């Protein structure tokens, strides 16, 4: 059992799977000798060599095309798109090709591949290097979407993603790379499509993802001291979505608050709210509330960025006000 940072957990998860399966190969920009711009892939090149861990040109379409072509012919590639914002330069490969080809070919092809990418804000990188794109991926049929919130989940969900036979968009919250926790030794394998209840309460259910999970937990703590008992659910996987856990936990408290980093419109929170409002409408005790980044590009300046992304204070205030109105 060792303290592991979130970024070390990435390399550990990948290494675990590369050791057990020669078909796992890994490509991306500056991921080999350099160990990745976020230092999330340190040691892989040294252990697995330049044939399996391979630097590419700045050609995101080529990177994903390579992953797709390799997956359809029997490999299990992992591709890195350095910042999630860069999905925009290779979106065709993701949404029109990788996501749809199995269906279009009536199941003749399978795409066991993982696309990892640094997601989200908080690092003062400005509007083109800070986006949370989990909703971009969730809205596309044929993609699985995983967003872990801690190092242990990173290892197990990375392993599960690599072993999964479908394309997985694996989003790594940049703001969490430095976070650490105890992670057991030995093989770790988690399950996609499972949410985790991190805290059980009676008054309201807070559903959060990725970087918003620690904030939701902190807010729940604060709210408890102000007399509001909250359940906190970590979604972990947007597709497949563990609606059973979420519906159960929302039913139990009668109130849903979603906490999203993506901008306001068409986020996963709206999706959850609409599922809840359709399927357990009569279990609800009050409005469904979404706490999100406003519908704006992210500003670079620290004070502005901190105002934009949901903070512990904003979560606490929003829940408190809503529960008392």
């Amino acid at each position, binding site marked *: 059992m060792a303290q592991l940072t979130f970024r070390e957990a990435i390399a550990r998860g990948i290494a675990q799977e590369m050791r057990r399966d020669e078909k796992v190969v890994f490509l991306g920009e500056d991921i080999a000798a350099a160990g990745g711009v976020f230092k999330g892939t340190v040691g892989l090149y040294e252990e697995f060599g330049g044939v399996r861990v391979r630097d590419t040109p700045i050609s995101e379409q080529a990177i994903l*095309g390579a*992953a797709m072509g390799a997956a*359809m*012919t029997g*490999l299990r*590639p992992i591709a890195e798109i350095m910042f999630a914002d860069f999905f925009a330069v290779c979106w065709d490969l993701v949404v029109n090709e990788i996501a749809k080809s199995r269906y*279009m070919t*009536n199941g003749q092809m399978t795409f066991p591949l993982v696309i990892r990418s640094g997601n989200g804000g908080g690092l003062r990188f400005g509007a083109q290097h800070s986006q949370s794109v989990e909703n971009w991926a969730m809205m596309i049929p*044929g993609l699985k979407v995983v967003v872990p919130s801690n190092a242990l989940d990173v290892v197990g969900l990375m392993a599960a993603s690599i072993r999964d036979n479908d394309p997985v968009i694996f989003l790594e919250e940049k703001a969490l790379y430095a976070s650490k926790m105890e992670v057991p030794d030995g093989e770790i394998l988690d399950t996609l499509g499972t949410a985790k209840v991190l805290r059980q309460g009676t008054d309201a259910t807070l559903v959060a993802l990725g970087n918003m999970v620690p904030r939701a937990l902190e807010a729940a703590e604060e709210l408890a001291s102000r007399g509001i008992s909250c359940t906190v659910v970590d979604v972990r996987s947007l597709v497949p979505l563990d*609606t059973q856990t979420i519906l159960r936990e929302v039913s139990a408290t009668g109130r849903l608050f979603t906490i999203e980093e993506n901008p306001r419109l068409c986020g996963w929170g709206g999706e959850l709210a609409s599922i809840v409002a359709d399927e357990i409408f009569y279990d609800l005790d009050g409005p469904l509330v979404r706490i999100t980044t406003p519908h704006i590009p992210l500003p670079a300046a620290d004070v502005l960025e901190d105002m934009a992304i949901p903070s512990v204070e904003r979560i606490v205030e929003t829940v408190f006000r809503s529960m008392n109105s």
Partner: protein
Amino acid sequence: MAKDKKEKKKDSTVTDGPTLTLEEKLDMYRVQVELRQFEKRAYDLFLENFVKGTSHLSIGQEAIAAGFAAAMRKDDWTFATYRGHAHTLARGVPMTPVLAELMGRENGLMAGKGGSMHLTSVEHGVMGSYAIIGAHLPIACGAAWSAQYRGTEQVAVCFFGDGTVNIGAFHEALNFAAIWKLPVVFVCENNLWMEYTRTSEVTAVENPAADRASAYGLESIIVDGNDADAVYSVASRAIARARAGEGPSLIEATTYRHFGHSRADPGKYRPDAEVAEWLAKDPIPRYHQRLIKEGATEQQLVAIEKAVSVAVDLATEEAKAGKAPSPELLMKDVWADGGAQWRN
């Protein structure tokens, strides 16, 4: 805009490739005739509203598909575009499922789920037909990478049009294939036109693919795409090179589509003289004549044509007899587990 670079070009000739027997050539003839007759039928069926949606014919371009298919190993891979009937059939995919796919029937190659623009038969090495311009070039690189990694000596052959050379994916794929020395052959079928725009009007070089080969450290290759033997020869060399680990090639095959771009487009935007010039270069009568010169009999060739015609009629009947896709297919095979569930 375009500079004259004729002198730099190396026009491949039939002589410097492997030689084909008459029998093999007769088979290339059969393939071309099959593609031609199949697509004429597909066009008729489109007009009769049996084929819905859209359809893009390769009529006039058959020699490229036939020549490449003949040069490929059974386990090599084809990557095609929406204009993919010819390349699919040339690899040996039977006509019935292809026609049935065009008609949206359950006995279609993909049970109607893909349609005419996405013909795929993994069993025959046809690794998909792609309808977004340029997308399949990087994907072909991926297959080639996988062959290289696994040491299987398979080669990926990727077909695309002249209009495709101006999209970003083309550029990324060519550079990527070159630096990783991937076993992939890129084939630009230069039929002079995009949809309704002449490619030379929007392209900074005269020969859309060949004049860009040097930008990727590749040899500039142009071949007469209306001559199956010439295509076969160039194809064989490029494929052998790829198989031997010597990296990718970029081949420009000059040709022409006799019909419009898609559906019922009459292609009126093209000057009559140009169309006439190219109809005179029709690869099939040309090949017919050559075979006669090389010792085939008129009877042999007519027999081939008749056999194909019978087969096309049969395929038409079989395709028409196919039923509509069953409703269960709708929610099948989004995922590898066969289903479409995104929740529990």
